[in-house]
């Protein structure tokens, strides 16, 4: 372990040890460690042939597949930096990310690369992800560039408060600090099977992939389109004999509530259920704990810090009527809460959570490097033992099924439509039923509808930021000081618009 330098060495080492073991299992095809390793080398060779080298950014715009994961490894092997982009990202937003990051190459299946507008496509080296590797008479040349711990490994784009996506830069050191903790905590082995629920462009997937690669275990991919189809997820859990599951609580709650999770005994293989991204309501968590003997772990951390605290659920937690704590520091980080005056909060007090240590990101791409502790914007209460209870956000950020969304971004996108006179966006409902609701006053004479407005938004927002519920109203409610009356907006809503089956 000691000579290991880069995130990509995890896969290489397992491929050398157990080339025939399954590495990635997915509907779009499975690959053994040997095959994934070989595919990564082939893609690295093609990228290198296109001039990609250390420090370059490479976009990976693809549905979840073994090939997409091989491309991530290929980029790392060149000492370059990968940027995973959600396959449903509309071309307009893709353009912004491509421009912001100064990416030089794109790995994508042909149908997606064909959608990149031509001025940009001419500047990007495109590698067709799904093209069969060219049979090569030459012996295979393994690629491995030496990286320094502080070299960047990947950039994850998140919702930014100005309407421009922000690229969170993660170094090899940072990712490995988190993975080392996860592997020490979960003690997985080659027989383990990790579910990958989160999209590759979200930070939850980092644990699934690299904890599995560290020990030569299999990662079983869940396609995003059925990530919230309840019976489908339950069937997947059993069929793939999952042993480690990691997702937002919403997915697990959906399986409990609508997927018949409790109707069948827990799979004997299941030994850890991990969740992060939002508080897990205590009721469903009790049901989950009664159903399975698996360890239940609540992980916490914004994309900017990876996972910096965690809490293992104990019977005493289930006796409280509160969400379980986000717990104590991990991954080698120091984590504390500060009062409004900047001093450290004592047990029993509230404050903003602050993180310093190896998992803290290097900065947003193209902006000042992150120096010193990172203030998360999350409000917490310090528990008597020094661990933390999560209270909520300080700012206008909301979470919908684990995705963080700046409401201001969505409002700005609505106002960018010429026919929108007034707009407001709120998050309504709890847990699984939580959706963004937009209220829109159309300007006089404009006649666009729901779908036309969505077309406009799709050019500016990631798919998970487009409100699930868009309503046209004659006016927005204002209070006596002229401020938008958010409470009055909530009133006419009885949960999301949804047809009871």
């Amino acid at each position: 372990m000691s000579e290991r330098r880069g995130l990509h060495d995890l896969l290489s080492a397992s491929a050398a040890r157990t080339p025939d073991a399954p590495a990635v299992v997915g509907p779009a095809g499975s690959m053994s460690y040997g095959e994934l390793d070989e595919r990564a080398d082939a893609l690295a060779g093609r990228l290198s042939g296109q001039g990609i080298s250390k420090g370059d950014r490479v976009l990976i715009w693809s549905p979840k597949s073994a090939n997409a994961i091989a491309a991530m490894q290929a980029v790392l092997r060149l000492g370059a930096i990968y940027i995973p982009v959600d396959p449903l990202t509309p071309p307009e937003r893709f353009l912004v990310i491509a421009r912001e990051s100064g990416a030089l190459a794109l790995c994508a299946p042909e149908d997606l690369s064909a959608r990149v507008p031509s001025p940009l496509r001419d500047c990007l080296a495109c590698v067709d992800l799904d093209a069969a590797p060219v049979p090569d008479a030459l012996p295979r040349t393994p690629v491995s560039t030496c990286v320094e711990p502080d070299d960047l490994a990947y950039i994850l784009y998140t919702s930014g408060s100005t309407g421009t996506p922000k690229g969170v830069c993660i170094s090899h050191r940072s990712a490995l600090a988190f993975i080392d903790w996860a592997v020490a905590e979960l003690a997985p082995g080659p027989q383990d099977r990790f579910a990958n629920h989160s999209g590759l462009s979200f930070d939850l997937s980092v644990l699934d992939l690299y904890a599995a690669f560290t020990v030569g275990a299999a990662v079983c991919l869940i396609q995003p389109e059925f990530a919230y189809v309840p019976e489908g997820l339950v069937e997947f859990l059993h069929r793939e004999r999952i042993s480690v599951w990691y997702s937002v609580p919403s997915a697990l709650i959906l399986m409990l509530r609508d997927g018949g999770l409790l109707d069948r005994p827990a799979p004997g293989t299941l030994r850890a259920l991990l969740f992060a991204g939002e508080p897990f309501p205590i009721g469903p968590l009790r049901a989950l704990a009664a159903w399975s003997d698996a360890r239940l772990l609540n992980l916490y951390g914004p994309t900017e810090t990876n996972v910096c605290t965690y809490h293992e659920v104990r019977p005493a937690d289930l006796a409280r009527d509160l969400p379980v704590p986000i717990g104590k520091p991990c991954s080698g980080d120091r984590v504390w809460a500060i009062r409004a005056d900047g001093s450290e909060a004592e047990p029993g007090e509230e404050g903003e959570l602050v993180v310093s240590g190896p998992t803290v990101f290097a900065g947003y791409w193209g902006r000042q490097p992150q120096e010193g502790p990172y203030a998360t914007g999350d409000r917490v209460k310090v528990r008597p033992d020094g661990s933390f209870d999560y209270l909520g956000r300080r700012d206008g950020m909301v979470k919908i099924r684990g995705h963080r969304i700046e409401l201001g971004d969505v409002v700005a996108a609505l106002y960018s439509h010429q026919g929108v006179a007034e707009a407001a966006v709120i998050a309504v409902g709890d847990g699984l039923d939580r959706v963004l609701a937009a209220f829109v006053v159309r300007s006089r004479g404009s006649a666009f509808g729901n779908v036309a407005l969505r077309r406009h938004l799709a050019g500016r927002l990631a798919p998970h930021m487009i409100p699930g519920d868009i309503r046209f109203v004659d006016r927005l409610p204002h209070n006596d000081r002229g401020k938008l009356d958010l409470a009055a907006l909530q009133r006419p809503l009885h949960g999301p618009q949804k047809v009871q089956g």
Partner: protein
Amino acid sequence: MATQTREDISSQLLTFIRESFLAGDPEGELDADTPLLELGILNSLNTAILVAHLGEDYGVHVPLIDVTATTFKSVRTLSELVHESLSRK
């Protein structure tokens, strides 16, 4: 059920999506080729509701392997999926 054409299924699905997810779509903007996933009309919740609807109203249980960005792309692709499943019965 077996006599339903693709067009029948398509118009029923259009109605379902308009009523369930688009507040009725009084402007009549939704058509068979509207990209449902890209426009956030089928977000994760609504996809789950739609899959349940296909099971209840058509008896079509969509195998996981068929729930993809290709088959759930538009009402047209969805109607084809439903029609094919019905004609196999």
